[in-house]
């Protein structure tokens, strides 16, 4: 055993986040940490990386008890953590980031040549081809992640903790990441791997520790069946992963015609009817999010028209879109969806703030009552409406973002990656919410990079590639291969429509 955690316990006001959790890591293994959001994964890795101190329990390295009081202690012990939000300085070069805080020096000055050389070696070790002089901001997310891994290697990490490293990657990038992870494993590094994608576990993992409600409920081999893993995670079997229940279709609520922004998307036309879920599939970078934001008025467009219930929306006017009954759940939940420092009630009431103003005063009681109603309807797990949104799990945060549009009674919802970083059980809750919305005559446009999700939850699927709509498939006829084939269409040739 390289690292062993015994009986870790940690409480926050109102919640016991960890309750006697055990974890053991062997050198040269990929140890998957599995659990719903809120099960205690984040708290556990924060204790191991020195961000939190446990209330009880202990951590042993090589059999000796150790104290991890801060990030410095963790580093000295050889524990590196790669969070979902990267710790890179965008304006500095890759090599500077890799030497951050401990640059090679000669005569008291930074030795650039040595720094570049060392950077190059580290990048070679993770097998990524990047000029070490490139500023980090110019790298895509996948390569930034590789730089993070290289940074961990620079610190001679013996334990590498990776928090949902595949959440932001495309399929091809995931394959590359796995290669690197395997190489590190073969070098004897113990890797803690957090993922919500069950199919990845058998591929990359050796053993799995399952957390539920702050306890470690099982340690099983990675070959365990997905059904069994889900059962361990939620404590009960989930019968249906994608419980789409088609609703009766009504009027077209959202019509987009010829929407174009030079360099981003071109001649996009589609409709979404009352009761319908339209999935928008495509590769990352195909222009889906750009279209969604333009439709909602968050960004401008050069040509085209957007209609909600037959009324034309003025371009680039979020307020008008909102008044017309359009709502957007953005891709970046924390950066664009939530006021993290404000409480749940404030966030749920954000959209209706203006409408709830009578004679100059906001009807705070009414706002609170509406927030309480929606929070109950969505089953948001909280200590109360005055809990800071920052302290909620990803799934519950997403419910708050969706909830603010429910409070506003938006008739058309655009959901951009609604289940990214959300655990299995909360995913199903969000799907059921989508069903409830379409049952009551709402229209939903859902952008998702998760193909099974698009196939499972849409009535109709639009596929985008390089800024254009390249195809439309009824859900019943769509297959993963079919959608993928369209998504990689080379638009320069002909449009498959």
């Amino acid at each position, binding site marked *: 055993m390289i690292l062993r955690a015994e009986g870790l316990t940690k409480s926050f*006001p*109102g919640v016991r986040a960890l309750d006697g959790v055990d974890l053991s890591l062997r050198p040269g293994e990929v140890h998957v940490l599995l659990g719903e959001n809120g099960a205690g994964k984040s708290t556990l890795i924060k204790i191991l990386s020195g961000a939190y101190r446990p209330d009880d329990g202990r951590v042993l390295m090589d059999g000796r008890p150790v104290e991890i009081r801060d990030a410095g202690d963790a580093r000295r012990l050889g524990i590196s953590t790669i969070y979902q939000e990267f710790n890179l300085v965008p304006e500095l070069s890759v090599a500077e980031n890799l030497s951050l805080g401990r640059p090679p020096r000669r005569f008291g000055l930074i030795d650039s040549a040595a720094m570049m050389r060392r950077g190059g070696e580290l990048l070679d070790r993770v097998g990524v081809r990047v000029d070490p002089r490139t500023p980090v901001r110019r790298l895509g997310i996948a390569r930034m992640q590789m730089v993070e891994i290289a940074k961990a290697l620079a610190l001679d990490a013996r334990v590498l903790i990776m928090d949902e490293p595949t959440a932001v990657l495309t399929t091809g990038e995931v394959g590359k990441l796995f290669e690197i992870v395997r190489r590190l494993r073969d070098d004897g590094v113990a890797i803690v791997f957090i993922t919500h994608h069950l199919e990845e576990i058998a591929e990359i993992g050796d053993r799995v520790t399952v957390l539920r409600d702050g306890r470690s409920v099982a340690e099983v081999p990675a070959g365990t069946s997905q059904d069994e893993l889900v059962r361990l995670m939620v404590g009960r079997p989930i019968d249906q992963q994608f419980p789409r229940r088609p609703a009766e279709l009504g009027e077209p609520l959202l019509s987009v015609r010829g929407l174009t922004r030079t360099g981003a998307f071109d001649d996009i036309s589609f409709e979404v009817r009352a009761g319908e879920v339209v999935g928008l599939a495509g590769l990352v970078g195909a222009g889906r999010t750009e279209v969604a934001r333009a439709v*909602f008025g*968050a960004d401008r467009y050069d040509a085209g028209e957007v209609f909600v219930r037959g009324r034309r929306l003025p371009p680039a006017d*979020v*307020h008008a*879109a*909102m*008044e017309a009954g359009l709502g*957007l759940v*953005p891709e970046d939940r924390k*950066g*664009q*969806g*939530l*006021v*993290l*420092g*404000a409480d749940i009630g*404030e966030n749920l009431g*954000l*959209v209706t*703030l*203006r409408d709830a*103003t009578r004679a*100059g*005063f*906001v009807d*705070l009681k009414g706002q609170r009552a509406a927030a309480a109603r929606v929070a109950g309807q969505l089953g948001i797990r909280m*200590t109360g409406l005055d809990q800071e949104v920052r302290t909620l799990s990803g799934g519950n945060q997403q419910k708050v973002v969706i909830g*603010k549009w429910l409070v506003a009674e938006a008739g058309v919802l655009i959901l951009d990656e609604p289940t990214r970083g959300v655990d299995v059980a909360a995913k199903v809750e969000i799907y059921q919410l989508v069903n409830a919305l379409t049952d009551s005559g709402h229209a939903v446009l859902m952008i998702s990079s998760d193909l099974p999700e698009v196939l499972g939850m849409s009535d109709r699927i639009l596929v985008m590639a390089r800024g254009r709509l390249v195809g439309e498939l009824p859900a019943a006829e769509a297959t993963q291969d079919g959608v993928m084939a369209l998504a990689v269409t080379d638009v320069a040739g002909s449009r498959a429509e």
Partner: protein
Amino acid sequence: MPSKRSAAWLAENGAVAALVVLVVALSLLSSDFLSLTNLLNVGVQAAVTAILAFGSTFVIVTGGIDLSVGSVAALSAITLAWTATEGGLPWPAAVVLSLATGVACGLVNAALIAYGKLPPFIATLAMLGIARGLALVISQGSPIAMPEAVSHLGDTVGRFLPIPVLVMLVMGVVAAVILNRTYPGRAMYAIGGNEEAARLSGIKVSRIKLVTYALSGAFAAVAGVVLASRLASAQPQAAAGYELDAIAAVVIGGASLSGGKGRALGTLVGALILAVLRNGLNLLSVSAFWQQVVIGVVIALAVLVDTLRRRGTN
């Protein structure tokens, strides 16, 4: 949860505790401190800073900063005095013009920030120079007498109620009501907390910023008029540097310069702490030079304690 509530109370009212400690200490150190005359004096001294600081609270809650309030206060007071004396306007019209001047300065700030995309620091730094310069231009560098009717704002009603203190309290209530109960007020917190999320929730961010800086300008105008009334004349160099006291008061009162946090009551307490401290140091015959050192230390300590406490609760 009582423990959480009391922790929250402390987090929000740490400044109150500091004020109480300060008052108790000074009353032990100086027998004159607790006299009625002196306390009223402290109130009057706090009034101008507090009124400016209420205006700055709006701005700081949105995550901005307003460096121009001292200059705008002087310009507004000069406008009032000049239009009433040289211009021959009836004093109520002059008062309205003076407030309009403050609002106009605020709107220019906001336009530069919201539409010109200037950082608030730069836009209001420019206005700090412009407003001060205009005050000097209009007054030709000399004090102008305030109209008789308006300068009563510097009086004391009966023996116990200085009007500046009354104005301060009224402006404080107005600020609290705007922040807590109105749409622009609630929107300010959302913008300071996460501007993009506020925009994507249909809040017209630019418009709210116009309101925010206009309010700051209006509050500055009121502060300028109160200050001029106390001195019985509008002085072009009045309130120089007061913007820093105002920002200090807001921050001591528990607001965060990164936005999303701040309360009118906290700001009032912050302004009182600064006034009590200055007054107490005078009573203890501490030299004016050392007073600046002490006040600097207090500002650093106040924010440091607050930061440490927040870190402790997270």
